[in-house]
């Protein structure tokens, strides 16, 4: 029973219809919706910890490190989900682990060692791609296909977000403690290094999941933008993760609708929506937003 926007008796109905009918009528929109919700569920909390651990740029570097791995998978097996997923995971994990270990056991800091490794893997990937000549299908890797997610991809995205949420719940204490007071953690437990490595593994998994929908370059956006926006609304870590998931979902829906009605490419529309939420939070967020800093109100007595 479909009612077109023009046939709706009230104006309210037509606005609702604009928001609702794309998802009720088109299967690819439903699939995209499921996909972005799954990505937001895993990406938001991971982004919050990346931000709190001062590793925001690490996510970006990891995304670049995944690209050549996925490209190699594509060159060997074509547009195959397992091959590209495995290639991306392998490249990401190798770079993350190598950078993590180098920073832990030498005097080089993590950002520097990560830069070294991702540049290396990027150069390697580009070289391999150029050996076989480029292909239009490689755009799939770069910008994703959020409007063409098949069952297997949706299953992969859902599995990744499930695993991420469970793993973060299990590692919550050492993750927090390692940011605040790593020396204390080392004095009471040996879980610091494995926690760090598992966390990097989660980052890679979420980026690989994200690249199927949004491409390697935009996948980080669904991680960092909701997380940084959430920081402006609360100083409680649990709330921050919840808010980041909500912002991710809202941006995903807004982006899909924007793309549907304005005929914009879906991936960039989603990230742009998240960017708008970020800028709005930066301005009016209750925890250190620009407006509250500029007009804090008259000081209290104590």
């Amino acid at each position, binding site marked *: 029973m479909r009612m077109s926007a023009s046939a709706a008796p009230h104006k309210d109905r037509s606005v609702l219809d604009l928001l609702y009918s794309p998802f009720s009528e088109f299967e690819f929109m439903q699939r995209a919706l499921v996909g972005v919700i799954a990505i937001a569920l895993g990406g938001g909390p991971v982004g919050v910890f990346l931000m*709190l651990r001062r590793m925001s740029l690490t996510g970006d570097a990891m995304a670049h490190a995944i690209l050549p791995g996925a490209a190699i998978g594509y060159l060997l097996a074509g547009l195959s989900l397992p091959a590209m997923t495995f290639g991306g995971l392998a490249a990401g994990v190798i770079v993350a682990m190598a950078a993590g270990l180098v920073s832990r056991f030498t005097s080089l800091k993590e950002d520097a060692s990560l830069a070294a490794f991702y540049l290396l893997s990027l150069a390697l990937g580009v070289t391999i791609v150029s050996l076989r000549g480029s292909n239009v299908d490689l755009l799939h890797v770069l910008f994703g296909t959020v409007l063409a997610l098949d069952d297997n991809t949706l299953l992969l995205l859902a599995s990744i977000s499930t695993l991420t949420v469970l793993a973060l719940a*299990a*590692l919550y*204490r*050492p993750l*927090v*403690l390692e*940011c*605040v*007071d*790593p*020396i*204390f953690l*080392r*004095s*009471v*437990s040996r*879980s610091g290094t494995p926690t760090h490595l598992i966390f990097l593994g989660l980052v890679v998994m979420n980026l690989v999941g994200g690249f199927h929908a949004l491409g390697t370059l935009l996948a980080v956006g669904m991680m960092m933008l909701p997380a940084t926006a959430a920081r402006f609304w609360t*100083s*409680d*870590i649990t709330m*921050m993760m919840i808010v980041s998931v909500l912002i991710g979902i809202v941006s995903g829906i807004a982006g899909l609708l924007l793309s549907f009605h304005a005929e914009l490419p879906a991936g960039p529309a989603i990230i742009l929506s998240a960017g708008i939420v970020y800028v709005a939070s930066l301005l009016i967020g209750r925890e250190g937003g620009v407006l509250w800093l500029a007009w804090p109100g008259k000081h209290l007595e104590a």
Partner: protein
Amino acid sequence: MDAASAAIRFDEVTLGYGRRPAVHHLHGDIPSGSLMAVVGPNGAGKSTLLKGVVGTLKPLEGQIRLNGPSSEIAYLPQVAEIDRSFPLSVYDLVAMGLWSRSGLFGGISAKDRTKIEAALAAVGLIGFERRPISTLSGGQMQRALFARLLLQDAPVILLDEPFTAIDAKTTADLLDLVRRWHAEKRTVVAVLHDLDMVKRVFPKTLLIAREPVAWGDTLDVLSADNLLKARRMVEAHDPHAHVCQRSAA
């Protein structure tokens, strides 16, 4: 002194960075239940010594033996090591002192909550529970960290310059906790710079300037002669240093 009564035993220990010693051939015992100060000029190896005991730094030579697992040591590093901008409440920071019992997953029971409240009360931080640690002053932060030490309930407590840049009132309050730990027969080792405080509160002292200068009763150790010896330590590395021939055996 027999092994059973030594909380920490140093066996010709050399600790350092690269091949350069920061603590050179330390030998001796810290008896269980002692209250000991570690003093010496900057760069003398005091913090390095504590890191060696906690186990974050492996000795270049020799052995540090503990009477019990290293998880039974509560260690307070210098203040600067904590990320104060992290969104964590005072309550959660203090509650982490229960780690050895709650571990990764264990919940915090009603009994634990009473303990946490008692620890907060002992350091005078009632009413600060919900405050983010970023809003604490230096002295308040140190009080919170002492509350965490209380909860760790460890037989051995190591303090690295716990009263640096802390006001007189807070120092006095926290020193009372140190005295209480001593009365409870815990082993307390503190790196300090205030020699008057050391003489007043700490019965034993280790004076160190890379080489151990003197170790024993505080008043004997802090003689003018020994202090002068410690002050003469050369901080710079000798580019032509030979391989040390003293054996660890």
